[in-house]
């Protein structure tokens, strides 16, 4: 229960210039549902009312909340509606969620703001305007009821979708006043609840999407079915950068079900009555490729380029403080290690897919599992050569995303190209092999870290050189000075108190496409740094946990999660025979996370992953059960990569294709995950990615404790270290 205009609340000017256009919520923009006619008395209840772009209230009090970010498993289809509902004071049991439309977003002046779903940004970036949308709608509902009762709005309170006039006890349901409320001017000023007034945020409510997901009902991209739809299977040039030279369509033209063979610049697609027919014909289609001079590139060439980067003159300094050169002039002790992290594919369970219809009147529709519906819209418009306002994007459920389905919309572009040539709706689905071999990979990287210790064993200097391809440069998002503001995530922005520091970056230009892979460059850089810290601690003769604590004197949040995880894991308690622990900490995407991995190591170098203990500080907590699930998720994803992940290149192409040669962690190998939420409650952090970076170094540190040998390259399987 909450009272209106409670003065302790934080006030937000809805249309003030304080946050610029950032607070323009589009409350006055015309709705796609037509409410132009003023409601006639007595008929208001006949229709749902869009109180603002985010919220539709139905006569039966059910509330539809629109979600502009993509649900790919991380739980935002529940978390974002919770933010709205908290301030709206509606009955959570009557809340439904649906995707906001990218097309509406464009038509209505970006009313839904960013639809990009990456960088763990959904909650931390949109919590303010979503809570305000709820608060504004609530004010409009209260004002409507108060004016109908002819009482001051200040005398009314709201809870569970009911407005109560406190002095008289009169009540009205939201559904009864919503249509009239939708006609009101939105308030200029709203008050948001203080965290201690929240009743929904911070509680483990059940996810809205799960009942359908356990019944097999959600429509994923691969499940789209349209009248007259055909199916496409595709093969792109296996050598990155190459083009289609020749193909012999006649060789498969008479195959059952085959309708058309479509040649694209760098790929060829077979369109058939069913996907299996298309794929079988594609496998037999004779094709020759122009490999664009990349057909001889091998892993050794890539390694050589990375190694050259470790000593290259042209590196760009990304962070420097103190006097790093003098710190290394005559240290009491110097420790150095050189690391390698391989390319990684995303391997979403649902391979890339998109369904497109290019209509004869110039309209284009796409049905697509996307991490950025606005990017899909732009890609479809650009590819079809139509005005973006002619494009309708229908978001589907995503069978995983992990960064693959956002910035790069290659699958959308392909589907539109194919549908345009075929003249009928076409569902394009990649085979698993196509998906593994045509990803935008986590960059292969090398790093050389050097530490200077004084005679007391304190870390006085740290140098880190990273040699890696640049994601931003490869996506055309960065200038050509050789810098990349995210390449040194986790190194340039380190929270450790090191008096003298230099991190620099040698950009490597390689032909393998790179992209955003869950936690991006934190994933490998945290491994480099945190596994190195254990090597430095050992050189200093110190316990790796306490060595870190000493370095975190000026980093209270990181210190707190590290202490919490050590306590939860029983860091100082003796371990069973052959059992070892490793610890690591990282801050990424606005949240702080520390983990302890426990392994039991066998004589044959196989090991059991016993448990992973995680302490996480995401600031405010929206849904603690979703946090626990994301911790389990990121740990699974990170462990899979650390254990097995290795995309290798030969003859210019990826050598792996399916789960037999690009294996995944399975249930049998999965450790128990224990999550402790240490919410400091004064910021909004991300959740999808922050629990990933610590797990690889924590595991490597545990195995280092067991074997005494550092593991300075990944995956572990390349060292003969495998889960039993």
């Amino acid at each position, binding site marked *: 229960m909450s009272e209106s205009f409670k003065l302790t609340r934080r006030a937000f000017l809805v249309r003030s210039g304080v946050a610029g256009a950032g607070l323009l919520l589009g409350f006055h923009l015309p709705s796609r549902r037509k409410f132009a006619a003023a409601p006639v008395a007595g008929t208001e209840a006949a229709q749902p009312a869009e109180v603002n772009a985010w919220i539709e209230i139905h006569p039966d009090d059910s509330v539809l909340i629109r979600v502009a970010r993509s*649900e*790919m*498993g*991380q*739980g935002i289809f529940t978390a974002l509606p919770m933010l709205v509902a908290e301030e709206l004071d509606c009955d959570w049991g009557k809340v439904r969620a649906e995707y906001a439309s990218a097309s509406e977003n464009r038509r209505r002046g970006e009313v839904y703001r960013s639809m990009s779903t990456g960088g763990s940004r959904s909650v931390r970036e949109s919590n303010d305007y979503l809570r305000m949308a709820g608060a504004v709608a609530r004010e409009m509902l209260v004002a409507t009821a108060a004016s109908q009762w002819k009482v001051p709005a200040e005398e009314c309170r709201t809870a569970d979708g009911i407005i109560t006039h406190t002095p008289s006890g009169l009540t009205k349901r939201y559904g009864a006043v919503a249509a009239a409320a939708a006609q009101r001017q939105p308030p200029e000023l709203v008050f948001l609840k203080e965290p201690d007034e929240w009743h929904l945020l911070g509680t483990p409510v*059940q*996810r809205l*999407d*799960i*009942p*359908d*997901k*356990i*019944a*097999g*009902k*959600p*429509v*994923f991209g*691969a*499940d789209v*079915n349209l009248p007259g739809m055909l*199916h496409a299977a595709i093969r792109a040039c296996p050598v990155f950068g190459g083009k289609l030279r020749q193909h012999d369509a006649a060789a498969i033209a008479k195959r*059952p079900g085959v309708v058309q063979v479509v040649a694209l610049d760098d790929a060829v697609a077979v369109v058939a009555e*069913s*996907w*299996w*027919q298309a794929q079988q014909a594609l496998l037999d289609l004779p094709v020759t490729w122009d490999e664009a001079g990349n057909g001889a590139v091998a892993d050794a060439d890539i390694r050589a380029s990375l190694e050259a980067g470790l000593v290259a003159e042209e590196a760009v300094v990304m962070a420097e403080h103190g006097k790093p050169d003098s710190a290394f002039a005559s240290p009491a002790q110097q420790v150095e290690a050189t690391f390698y992290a391989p390319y990684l594919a995303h391997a*979403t*369970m*649902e*391979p890339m897919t998109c369904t497109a219809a290019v209509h004869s009147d110039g309209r284009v529709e796409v049905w697509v599992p996307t991490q950025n519906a606005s990017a899909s819209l732009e890609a479809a418009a650009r590819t079809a050569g139509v005005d973006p306002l002619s494009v309708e994007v229908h978001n589907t*459920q*995503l*069978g*995983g*995303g*992990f960064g693959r389905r956002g910035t790069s919309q290659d699958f959308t572009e392909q589907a539109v190209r194919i549908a345009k040539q075929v003249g009928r709706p076409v569902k394009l*689905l990649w*085979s*698993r092999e196509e998906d593994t071999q045509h990803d935008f990979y986590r960059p292969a990287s090398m790093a050389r870290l050097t530490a200077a210790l004084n005679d007391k064993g304190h870390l006085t200097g740290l140098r880190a050189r990273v040699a890696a391809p640049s994601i931003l440069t490869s996506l055309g998002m960065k200038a050509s000075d050789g810098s990349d503001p995210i390449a040194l995530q986790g190194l340039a922005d380190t929270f450790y108190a090191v008096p003298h520091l230099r991190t620099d970056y040698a950009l490597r230009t390689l032909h393998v496409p790179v992209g955003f892979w869950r936690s991006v460059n934190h994933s490998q850089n945290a491994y480099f740094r945190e596994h190195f810290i254990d090597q430095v601690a050992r050189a200093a003769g110190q316990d790796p946990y306490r060595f870190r604590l000493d370095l975190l004197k000026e980093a209270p949040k990181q210190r707190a999660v590290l202490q919490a995880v050590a306590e939860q894991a029983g860091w100082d308690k003796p371990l069973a025979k052959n059992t070892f622990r490793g610890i690591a900490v990282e801050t990424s995407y606005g949240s702080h996370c520390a983990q302890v991995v426990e392994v039991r190591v066998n004589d044959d170098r196989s090991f059991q992953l016993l448990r992973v203990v995680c302490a996480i500080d995401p600031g405010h907590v929206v849904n603690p059960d979703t946090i626990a*699930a994301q911790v*389990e*998720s*990121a*740990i*699974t*994803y990170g462990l*899979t990569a650390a254990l097995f992940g290795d995309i290798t290149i030969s003859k210019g192409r990826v050598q792996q294709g*399916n*789960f*037999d040669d690009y294996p*995944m*962690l*399975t*249930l*049998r190998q*999965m450790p*128990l*995950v224990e999550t402790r939420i240490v919410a400091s409650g004064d910021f909004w952090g991300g959740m999808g990615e922050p629990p990933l970076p610590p797990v690889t170094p924590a595991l490597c540190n545990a195995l280092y404790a067991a074997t005494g040998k550092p593991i300075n390259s990944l995956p572990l399987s390349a060292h003969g270290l495998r889960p039993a």
Partner: protein
Amino acid sequence: MLQLNVNGQLHELDIDPDTPLLWALRDHLHLYGTKYGCGIGLCGSCTVHIDHKAVRACLVTAADVSGKAVTTIEGLAPDSEPVQLAWQAFQVPQCGYCQPGMIMASVALLRDKPSPTDADIDAAITNICRCGTYNRVRQAIHAAAAGKKEGADV
């Protein structure tokens, strides 16, 4: 003409008898709960029941199952199936793509072994989940087994 018995309904299909059951279900019967993940029987996203046994639908042809009883995720009763009730209680799914296969594999496991040990679960649930629902899958299977035994709601 092939005759398929899916979820208790008979369907006549004029398709290539070599069509994998997975694609017969998806592209011809429009039962989309059974998912494609790898096509080589490794990921388990296409797990269905054939005469009550868990089978990967990408590895059998439509002709193979002619005359047999095929059950897909659409053929379960989510309001009473203990596995699905446990899945709800433990909030198992994340993206949800692999979950029909996980659920079908788990229902078959509990039919064979009403009180599975962790080792039984390890051996039976080899499905791949990229979201990392494994801890909850294990918990939910144990809970479903307990619920079944007591005849109570999970």
